[in-house]
């Protein structure tokens, strides 16, 4: 058992003091001399042709410095993260000749202040020809439905279809004792990060541009902005200050980033574009609604033999990250179970609504709601304990999903057992008083994606570690801290490797001019991928230092050194060593004053189609349902999570709690309501996020530590997977409490009361028929 100095220890985050004193700078806090205000005009129609845009009156308004439209002032380049698959790139910064959702940007202005900018927008006259629109994916797929996009690969508004299959599903169904089919509907929710989208662009002249922006993927923004503006990617500098949450909603190039840049290029002044909260709803992104059908074949003993999943997603007007959500939903549908025969068909369908995209869980929350709900239905049918049926069908370490994935470490068995033990599951399941119930949900999740949509020639993560002459260390990483604590994890990994104190580590990040390229924060990739790049970089540094130490000390075994607690010493003779700083100084002198720099990178190899490693977990919720009001109260929530080696326990617990509460909102209260494509609740007053009094009073996080061979120090995902099982877990607990099953999300008091009423009527009818 290795003794770590900083890994797994209770350590304060490195960005803490600036965040609690108000000193931390976000994009919105940036104010540059001469800075103008940029604002966008948005479409009031869900689907319309643009016949003409008249900007004359706006341009004449005193204080207006520039007015831009798509056809006149942009290159009209279609962009998105799908550089590798150009047929999926379907979005432009400003509409070119057609708008496809209410809120789509049509024109933009730069003015001396907000009031003038708003007045200018009101003076832009856009002539539209309204086109028929469609809002539901099943309607959109029908023959004769309005066509939202032209193009050889789009058929009946389906922009992408996903299929995978292994085993022999049809034959396997025939051998099953039972086959059941259930349908589910999942609604739409938004990311609702508290920091709105905003950008500050400063054109430096001669094709050089700096953009400060709210993003979780600086490198993607750099490459795609270059494409949209026709500049060289290396001449565009993206700076990511602190970011106030992303959750998947800030991983694409957005109009505010392009518009701020073009306005700055036109005016020669810095331009800031800040979206209002309403604009974040109407011009933002959301999680995919899905129509889901599951057909599952199983045996009397509870073994699941075959499964067929089919889903149709409401993708909105553009692909965004939808094709990946679609793919991953079908993939996570299997987790964390051993399904020997599986077939998946998913369809990404355009509608005239805001685009749906990646959102924490990336297709997983929808998958696990359906999977967990149906497993409980199967357990009930067989008279089995839902925990037992989960244990029976669980994945084991080394599990292979043919053609898709190999799971190395897997602690799902321990997770389920510990969650059961901690909650007194056996004493409670089916035995709680009426109105109270307990439910379980399980999941597995990725630790980074083996996906390179952006077609980057660079490694997925890069890192550079520079040791200064006084022993302090500068760490350069291109990954994106957006609140999850990844900069602190990076500092911990370097501190552990080099044996220096956390206070001597300086993390330099969020600037594409100084940091190595990195694919950014999505798919729970940063700890594993940046961690591995950092370990490689540190090993290079250590090799140099060990050589110097050997020259200074002259031991009989040359390179068997270790670095710990500010010393470099002989592994087998720890008392024989040198001060870290002394070795650093000598190493610099010995190499003609060259700085000591280590460079590392990481790209997954031979890791299948999805991820280099998988986390696992089990979630148990105890609820109380008020049968008079339909209100659901969470009494106790317990989660057991396998994230491999824990690097920062406080960070892991915080991620688990945050993920759970986001899932609680998804299940019980959040709902992006639209009518004819118009969002009816685009505010934090009407869109109901969980508030402090709503969250469970008792929340227990249990760490199930495994060792993941592919992860840094054995670590893997901790921030996203737990979003996935909550809806199913809560739905199962509600069923246990009051005997009604809601398959149509969200589970609102109205739906509960209606279901209770139907149950009562059915009972009365059955009684009469007896």
């Amino acid at each position, binding site marked *: 058992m290795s003794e770590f100095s900083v890994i797994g220890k209770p350590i*304060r*985050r490195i*960005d*803490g*003091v*600036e*965040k*609690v*004193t*108000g*000193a*931390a*700078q*976000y994009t*919105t*806090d940036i*104010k540059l001399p001469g800075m103008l205000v940029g604002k966008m005009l948005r479409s009031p129609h869900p689907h319309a042709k643009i016949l003409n845009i008249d900007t004359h009156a706006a341009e004449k308004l005193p204080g207006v410095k520039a007015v831009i439209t798509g056809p006149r002032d942009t290159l009209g380049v279609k962009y998105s993260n799908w550089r590798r698959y150009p047929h999926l790139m379907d979005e432009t910064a400003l509409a070119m000749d057609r708008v496809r959702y209410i809120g789509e940007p049509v024109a933009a202005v730069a003015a001396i202040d907000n009031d003038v900018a708003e007045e200018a927008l009101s003076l832009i006259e856009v002539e539209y020809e309204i086109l028929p629109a469609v809002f539901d994916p099943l309607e959109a797929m029908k023959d004769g439905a309005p066509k939202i996009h032209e193009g050889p690969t789009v058929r009946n508004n389906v922009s992408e279809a996903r299929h995978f299959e292994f085993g022999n599903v049809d034959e396997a169904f025939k051998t099953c004792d039972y086959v059941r089919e259930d349908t589910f509907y999942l609604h739409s929710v938004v*990311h*609702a*990060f*508290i*920091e*709105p989208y905003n950008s500050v662009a400063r054109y430096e002249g001669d094709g050089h541009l700096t953009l400060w922006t709210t993003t979780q993927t600086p490198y993607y923004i750099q490459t795609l902005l270059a494409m949209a503006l026709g500049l060289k990617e290396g001449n565009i500098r993206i700076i990511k200050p*602190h*970011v*106030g*949450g992303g*959750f998947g909603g800030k991983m694409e190039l957005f109009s505010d980033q392009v518009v701020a840049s073009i306005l700055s290029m036109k005016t020669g002044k810095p331009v800031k574009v800040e979206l*209002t*909260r309403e604009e974040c709803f109407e011009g933002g992104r959301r999680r995919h609604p899905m129509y889901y059908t599951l057909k599952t074949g199983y045996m009397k003993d509870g073994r699941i033999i075959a499964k067929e999943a089919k889903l149709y997603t409401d993708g909105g007007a553009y692909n965004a990250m939808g094709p990946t959500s679609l793919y991953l939903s079908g993939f996570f549908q299997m987790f964390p179970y051993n399904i020997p025969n599986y077939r998946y068909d998913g369809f990404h369908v355009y509608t005239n609504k805001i685009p749906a995209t990646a959102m924490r869980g990336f297709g997983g929350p929808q998958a696990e709601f359906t999977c967990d709900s149906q497993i409980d239905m199967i357990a009930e049918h067989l008279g089995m304990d839902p925990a037992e049926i989960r244990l029976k069908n669980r994945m084991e370490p080394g599990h292979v999903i043919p053609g898709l994935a190999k799971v190395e470490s897997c602690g799902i068995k321990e997770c389920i057992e510990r969650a059961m033990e901690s909650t007194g599951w056996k004493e409670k399941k089916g035995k709680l008083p009426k109105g109270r119930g307990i439910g379980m949900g399980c999941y597995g999740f990725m630790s980074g994606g083996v996906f390179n949509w952006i077609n980057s020639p660079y490694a997925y993560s890069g890192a550079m570690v520079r040791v200064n002459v006084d022993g302090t260390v500068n760490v350069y990483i291109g990954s994106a801290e*957006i*609140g*999850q*604590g990844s900069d602190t994890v990076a500092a911990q990994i370097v501190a552990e490797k080099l044996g220096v104190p956390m206070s001597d580590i300086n993390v330099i990040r969020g600037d594409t001019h100084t940091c190595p390229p990195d694919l950014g924060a999505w798919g729970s990739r940063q700890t594993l991928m940046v961690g591995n790049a950092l370990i490689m970089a540190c090993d290079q540094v250590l090799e140099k230092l060990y050589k110097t130490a050997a020259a200074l000390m002259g031991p009989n075994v040359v390179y068997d050194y270790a670095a710990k607690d500010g010393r470099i010493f002989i592994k087998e003779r720890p008392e024989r060593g040198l001060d870290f700083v002394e070795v650093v100084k000598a190493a610099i002198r010995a190499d003609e004053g060259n700085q000591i720099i280590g460079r590392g990178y990481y790209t997954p190899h031979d890791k299948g189609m999805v991820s280099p490693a998988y986390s696992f977990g089990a979630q148990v919720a105890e609820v109380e349902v008020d049968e008079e009001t339909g209100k659901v109260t969470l009494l106790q929530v317990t989660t057991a999570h396998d994230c491999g080696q824990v690097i920062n326990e*406080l*960070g892991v*617990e*915080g991620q688990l*709690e*945050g*993920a*759970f*509460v*986001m899932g609680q909102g998804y299940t019980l209260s959040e709902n992006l309501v639209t009518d004819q494509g118009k969002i009816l609740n685009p*505010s*934090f*007053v009407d869109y109901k*996020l*969980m*508030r*402090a*009094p709503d*969250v469970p*009073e008792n*929340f227990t996080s249990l760490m199930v530590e495994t060792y993941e061979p592919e992860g840094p120090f054995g670590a893997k995902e901790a921030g996203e997977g737990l979003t996935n099982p909550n809806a199913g877990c809560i739905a199962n607990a509600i069923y246990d409490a009051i005997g009604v099953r809601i398959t149509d999300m969200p589970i609102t008091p109205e739906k509960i009361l209606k279901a209770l009423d139907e149950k009562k009527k059915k009972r009365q009818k059955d009684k009469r028929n007896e």
Partner: protein
Amino acid sequence: MKKILNFTLNGDPYEVAVKPKTTLIELIRDEIGLTGPKVGCNAGACGACTVLVDGKAVDSCSVLALQVEGHHVETVEGLADGEKLHPLQEAFLDDGGYQCGFCTPGMLMAAKSLLNENPDPSIHEIRHGLSGNLCRCTGYVRIIDSIHDAAQRMKKEGGES
């Protein structure tokens, strides 16, 4: 037409000329240049802009600057005493009471207001005391713990002095 406004901000007297429609958050962030308080919704629903006026939490996006004439305004920047952090700040650091940090300046001031009124709140009282402040990262669990912890620290400090 601008009007003259006199008030104190984090203990310092200010005399400024402001437009009648300027909100308190605009005055603090855009005119005076303290960027701790944040704008999350500009509608009094998220609490990221929370500051104290005479010790009580207020959504500074929903108050006009001229309304604080003669009043004492405190922002997160006034919480620490030089490099010595306030017990609330220490507790947020030790207990993981923040993640992205965007709601934190408002959350800390809401907590200070709560402790001003009730120095020894129960967990239940803390939960309800934060109902005006949204956090999308933490799930509130650690924020609630941090405030409870801070109250204990302050009680201890008060006891020692």
